[in-house]
């Protein structure tokens, strides 16, 4: 591996990186922007390979394997995002997503939601401590989710067991 050849291949890697860079700046399709990113990664990997060959050790190749791993992760996540975005707005244009803000429609401004009531919900369990032979639990009894109001609680006069039998 001579120095001249190393410089030639480094320039080749720079050309690849620049092509990916210009592609990322100019393209508007989400998938092609993503491909431009991959092109930039390929240029960087080329650099690592050339230096691995120049210095005569494996470090550059190991780095390229890590780059490939991250590129695979990035590909999967990016395509998942593209499908997610395509589902909500059927276009691949990046400009469709240039405003990720709330609606700017003056006639229908988005009002902040006011929380009016706080419901504390606790599950009502099957009454315990009763002998099922003496006081059998009725068959239509369901352990449902009750709404506990602030006045109700543990200090309530009516016991849960009685309530259950009333049901």
């Amino acid at each position, binding site marked *: 591996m001579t120095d*001249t050849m190393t410089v030639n291949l480094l320039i080749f890697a720079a050309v690849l990186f*620049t092509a990916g860079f210009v592609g990322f700046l*100019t393209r508007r399709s989400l998938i092609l922007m993503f*491909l431009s990113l991959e092109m930039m990664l*390929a240029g960087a990997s080329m650099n690592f390979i050339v230096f691995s060959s120049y210095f005569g*050790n494996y470090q550059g190749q190991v780095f390229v394997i890590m780059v490939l791993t991250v590129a695979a*992760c990035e590909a999967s996540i990016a395509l*998942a995002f593209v499908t997610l975005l395509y589902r909500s707005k059927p276009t*691949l244009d990046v400009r469709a997503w240039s405003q990720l803000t709330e609606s700017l429609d003056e006639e229908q401004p988005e009002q902040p939601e006011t929380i009016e009531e706080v419901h504390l919900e606790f599950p009502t369990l099957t009454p315990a401590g009763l002998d099922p032979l003496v006081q059998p639990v009725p068959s239509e009894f369901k352990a449902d989710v009750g709404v506990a109001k602030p006045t109700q609680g543990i200090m309530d006069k009516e016991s849960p067991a009685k309530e259950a039998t009333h049901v």
Partner: protein
Amino acid sequence: MQAIGSYLSIPFAQSDPIETVSQLSGSWNLSMLIPILLGAAGYLLLQHGIVKGKQYLFMGVIAAVASVISASLFIPPAFENYILFLFCALATGGAFGFLTARDPVYAALGFATAVLSISGVMFMQSAMFVAAANMIVYAGAIIIIFLFVLMFAQQTNLRTYDVKLTYPVVAAPIGVIMLGTLVYCLTAEGAFPLSRPDATRAYSEASPPENLMTDEGNAAVKKLKTIEHTGSYKSVSPSTTSGLGRSLYTDYLLAVALAGTILTVAAVGAIALATKTTGEDV
């Protein structure tokens, strides 16, 4: 022609650093712009000829052939150099086809050409495993992206966002400036050769252990030692896949484990993101 002659007379063995620097700076000259300009003209004429007519196509082919011939004069005459620079030219052409294609399917084809040629260059740099892995990973990714492109772009006419790009007149000079800066930094005086590491000591933990207990291990170690001692042990050329594997699983074991973890996390995340929630369950 004198410049070409001076380029060809560069000794390809390692020599004195200062001497090499002066030769490097002498080997880069303005006459190397000729094949580049010819190739650019050929590319433009070819693209023009596909739309307009045959005479442009003919001129484009002539310019491209002239570019290839004039570029081959600069290449040091060896068979492997020709193959290497053929791969480089293919990759560059694929990259520019990817940049200029309007149809996303053609753009993806150009990208596939570029990536496969890059794998070829890696193969010529004796990075066998990385070249194969690059091909496999990118081929799989390209097939999936092809499917996506075909799925999303089923209409025959082109979309507006594929034709009207974002400020190509601004982006192209930015790219040219960046490339010029990179090339200037690479070819500047004193940029090369870099200081090489001390090659007399073992660079990696992955050198074979001295005493293995089993006979098979002893035989393997003996074989390795004979191979490496017949050559020069001090400069281990990174050409074997087994050496890469040994280095990967000894020096970079933690990195490999982390890479596996991040792959798992990414797979889980992608599935969780892309799954359609119906609203009934969850």
